[in-house]
Every structure is written in structure tokens, then in C-alpha cells.
């Protein structure tokens, strides 16, 4: 990219805070946890500079998530960030946001699990992010793969949260959070306006998520599921790289997809017909696009830093496709570099 003016090297966590500011975020609630702590401390510094901003370091993650819900009910663009075991606790407020259709933005910096695990990297929070609630998990999950996307998708997350009144999860990892690079912050996307859900001046609003009768709950669930299907069509997004003539299509997302992009480049230079399908939204997942991406392929290679969490999603999406062999490069809790993907492709070809 062409660079003008002041150039700063920024970390992923700093970029997320900038993205949130560009999106008009007004309130952050959080609890320190590696690798997302600098988002909390970054926002704390922002709140010193701009007295209109709300910041609270809470006693735990549920308090942060329910603080987000409270401020969103009051019409503020509110958000949080967490990881790993904090992500587990954060499912509690996330499902409330699903049930009551409360805008909720959260960045998850995946770390290795189960439990405390490692502090920087994995893709093992995919299931939790996509389907972690008790219910039908009507939430949107975005998967940034690089720093520019981290900025752009943060803004997109706030837009979607308020446009659709849903929780939106930005599913990153510690590599993304901690790496530095150059990002264009001059063209932030438009963001849907926030307005109070309670105290809006109209008739009193009674929000509840407790039902005595199955039919009462079902009525609300079905309404939300119909909405979610409609919204899914609008937001579903994926990227295909050189899939047109590919005999092998790699499936990867997030940081691993960046390595896969590099692998495709290397392999294409040596004439290997390889492509990449990379979901940008992990929920909804573009099953039709995935099927389309493998139309000429005889093999697919699923690459992930987890043990089949992504693979199950991919194979379920490709149900009905025949004559395509499935290969796997599963590295639960470990990073995957381009050279490993290249070697795996050369092995299976």
C-alpha cells in the first residue's frame, strides 16, 4: 500500500482498539487475560483522553459481559475482549444477548486449551465461539486473518451488532493480537447507529428470558431463527483463491489461512494446481460457496490449529459431494506455517 503522513507500527490489540474507536464504540468492560489484556489497557488510556468513554475493569468476565448488555440497553456501543477460560465464562452473557437480541461485540484472542493451556495461540475456541451457548447460538462470528482485517472487521462487527441486534464475535488469536504491522485506518466502514433499547421514551419495555410454557419459548426462538437465517444470507462471506482449476483445495481460516495463502503461492509457482477456500464468517458458514470451491477438485486438505473443530464444519458443509478425498493437517494448539502446508500438499498429491 502507498503510505502518506505519519506511519506507526501497531500491534493487533492496538488496532482493535482503534477499530472500535472508529466504529464509535463508547463503552468497554473487561477482565485482564492474556493475550487480550492490551485491549483493556488500551481502552483505559482512551478513556483518559476522552471523558465520554465508559471503561470498567470488572471483577470477572460475566460481570464484563453483563456490563456490556446493560450499556447496550442504554444505547451505547459497548464491547469486551477475552480469551480461553474467560471465553467460557463469557458464553453466559452471550446467550442472554442472543435471547433478548442485544447488540454485543466481543473480540476473542484464542489461546491453547483445554482450560488454562497456553496463553498465545490456538484455533481451539471455534466450537465455543460458534456454538457455545445453551440454545441455538444465533450469533455472528467473523474471522480476521491479518491486521488490516482486524481493523476492518472490528468496525464491521459493531455495524452488524447494531444493525441486526445480535452478538458478534471477532475470533482472533494471540498471534494476531501481538503481531505488529501497518494498517490503513483512514477508510473505516459505515456503522449502524446505536439507540437506547430501554428508557427510549416510548411505552415501558419488559425484557425477559424466562418462560413457563414451551410454546412461549418456541415462538420467540422460531422468530429469532427465521431472522437469523435471513441475516445469515446478508452477511455470509468467504474468500476463494485459485479454486477455479484447483485439483487440491485447502480449507483454512484466520491465521492459518494466511499461511495457506502463502502455501498456494509457493505451490502454484511450481505448477501445482492448488487453491484455498477461506471462510470470513465462521457463523454463518458459506456451505454453498464451499461446495462451489471444490467443484473441480479431487482432494481437499483441511488445515487447522485444532483437532477437527473446523474439519467437522467443512465436511458437514460438503455433504453430498462425492469423489473428493479428504486430507487433514491438524495441529491442535500449535501454529501452522506455509512450508508445512506445502510439504503436506506435496505428500498427498
Amino acid at each position, binding site marked *: 500500500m502507498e503510505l502518506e503522513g505519519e506511519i506507526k507500527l501497531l500491534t493487533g490489540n492496538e488496532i482493535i482498539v482503534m477499530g472500535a474507536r472508529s466504529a464509535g464504540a463508547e463503552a468497554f468492560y473487561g477482565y485482564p487475560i492474556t493475550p487480550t489484556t492490551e485491549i483493556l489497557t488500551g481502552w483505559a488510556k482512551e478513556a483518559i483522553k476522552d471523558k465520554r468513554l465508559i471503561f470498567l475493569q470488572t*471483577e470477572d468476565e460475566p460481570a464484563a*459481559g453483563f456490563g456490556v448488555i*446493560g*450499556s447496550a440497553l442504554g444505547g451505547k456501543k459497548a464491547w469486551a475482549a477475552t480469551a480461553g477460560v474467560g471465553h467460557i465464562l463469557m458464553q453466559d452473557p452471550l446467550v*442472554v444477548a442472543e435471547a433478548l437480541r442485544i447488540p454485543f461485540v466481543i473480540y476473542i484472542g484464542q489461546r491453547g486449551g483445554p482450560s488454562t493451556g497456553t496463553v498465545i495461540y490456538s484455533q481451539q475456541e471455534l466450537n465455543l465461539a460458534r456454538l457455545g451457548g445453551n440454545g441455538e447460538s444465533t450469533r455472528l462470528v467473523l474471522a480476521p486473518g491479518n491486521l488490516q482485517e482486524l481493523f476492518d472487521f472490528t468496525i464491521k462487527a459493531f455495524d452488524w451488532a447494531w444493525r441486526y441486534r445480535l452478538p458478534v464475535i471477532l475470533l482472533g488469536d494471540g498471534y494476531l493480537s501481538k503481531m505488529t504491522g501497518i494498517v490503513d485506518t483512514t477508510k473505516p466502514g459505515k456503522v449502524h447507529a446505536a439507540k437506547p433499547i*430501554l*428508557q427510549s421514551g416510548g411505552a415501558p419495555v*419488559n425484557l425477559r428470558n*424466562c418462560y413457563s410454557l414451551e410454546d412461549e419459548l418456541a415462538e420467540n426462538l422460531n422468530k429469532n431463527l427465521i431472522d437469523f437465517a435471513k441475516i445469515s444470507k446478508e452477511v455470509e462471506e468467504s474468500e476463494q483463491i485459485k479454486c477455479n482449476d484447483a485439483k487440491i483445495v485447502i480449507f483454512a481460516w484466520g491465521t492459518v489461512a494466511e499461511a495457506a495463502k502463502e502455501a498456494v503461492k509457493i505451490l502454484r509457482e511450481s505448477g501445482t494446481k492448488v487453491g484455498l477456500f477461506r471462510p470470513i464468517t465462521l457463523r454463518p458458514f458459506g456451505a454453498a460457496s464451499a461446495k462451489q470451491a471444490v467443484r473441480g477438485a479431487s482432494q481437499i486438505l483441511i488445515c487447522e490449529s485444532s483437532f477437527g473443530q473446523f474439519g467437522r464444519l467443512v465436511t458437514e458443509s460438503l455433504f453430498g459431494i462425492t469423489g473428493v478425498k479428504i486430507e487433514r493437517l491438524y495441529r491442535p494448539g500449535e501454529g501452522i506455517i506455509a512450508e508445512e502446508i506445502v510439504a503436506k500438499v506435496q505428500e498427498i498429491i
Partner: protein
Amino acid sequence: MSVPIMPKCYKKSSKPSNFCSGCGHSLALKSLGFVIDDLGISKKTVFATDIGCSLLAWNFFDIDTIQSHHGRAGCISVGLKRAMPKSIVVAYMGDGGGYSIGLHHLIHMAKRNEAVTVILVNNTVFAMTGGQSAPTTIAGENTESTPDGAYTDDQPIFGPELLRKVASKKAFLARTSVSDMAQLKNYLKRAIENQVRNNAFSFVEVLSWCPVNWKKNASECEEYLLDLKKIYKTGVISDES
């Protein structure tokens, strides 16, 4: 025959309410309703209910409400008040949500002097789930999970006294009971006024009865509540206590 006077802020379509006959919640809520009427704040009040029996109040009033669980009504109140400092935020919960699974939320709200009012109804049991022991269950009390009343050396949680240790001097902390309606109303009013005037945390524990889980009739409930008041002293919990 005169018709009993009901608070104007009641949502009439939700009456009769879903609370069991003789439940103390109805008395606590009625007092709160009169306070909201007296202060003329129904339009600018948000009422956050919690899990257990307190959630039955989700549509009790014709005011904005939000319902959650596990003491998170307090956390939502924090987020609401910070977003809308001019609104009056009242969280309403039981002793299970507030003193067991959500106790740390209360402690930290008091510690940070969050400018919200919390009303906690203490009937010494987990009532909605069928009468298990609560952090407030007293020694020798028979509950579904302490069937022989063998409640060894567990000490009950004394909420307002506990919060006093961490709360700001501006905080209003008190315990009252559904057997003293004048004091109940007075304390609820002061708790809300303290939020508005002093921008400070307020907490009122309301000792209450649960005829169903206590397996007691009205007069037995009154009698038992009097016994409880010997353990749970009512009054304003001052800095000096």
C-alpha cells in the same frame, strides 16, 4: 367494602401476579411500587430482576425491566447506570442469586460505589428450585438439601454487614422485613434517594417468608420470621457497626 389501594406503577395486566399465595415478594414489590409512585420516577426507573422467584417480577411494573440470572442483575445495572446516569436503576434479586453464585458482584458493586440500588429478598432458602439450603439458611433449619437440619458450624451470610466492610461511607445499607411494612417502605425510599442524591450504592436486604418451602401457614410464617429477626437484625447498617 373498600378496594385495597395498589401502586399506580403496577402493570395491571400482570395481576394477579405469578407469586405463590402469601409470598413475601408481593409485599416487597408493593412497597417498592408505592415508593416509585411517591417519588414520581416510574418513567425514569429501570428494574432489573434476577433468577429464581425474583424473575417472576419481570412484568410486575409498568416500567422498563430487564431479567437475568445468578446475581447478574447487578452487573446489568452497572452497565445501565454508566450508560444512562440520569436513569434510576434498581436491581432485584434473591439470597441465592445475590449471596451465593453472584455474591462477588455485590461486593464489587459496593466496593466501587456503583450508583444503583439493590434490593435482595432473603427467605433463607432457594425457593424456586424447591427449598434447598441457601447461604442464609440458619443452624438447625430443615431444607430439602439439609433434611436433618444438620447445619454444623456453617455461618449464614450477613449481607449488609459484609458489604459495610467494603462499601463507601456514602452507601446506604440496611436490613428490613416484610413484617414491618412502614420500615420496608422507608428503607426502599432512602435507598433510591441515596442513588439519586448522593450518586451512591444502596443495598436493602428484605427478610421475607416462603410459606411453600417453609411448609408453614401464615401465622407460623410470621412467628418464624420473628425468630429470624433475632439472628438477622433489622435496621440501617451504619459505618460504626
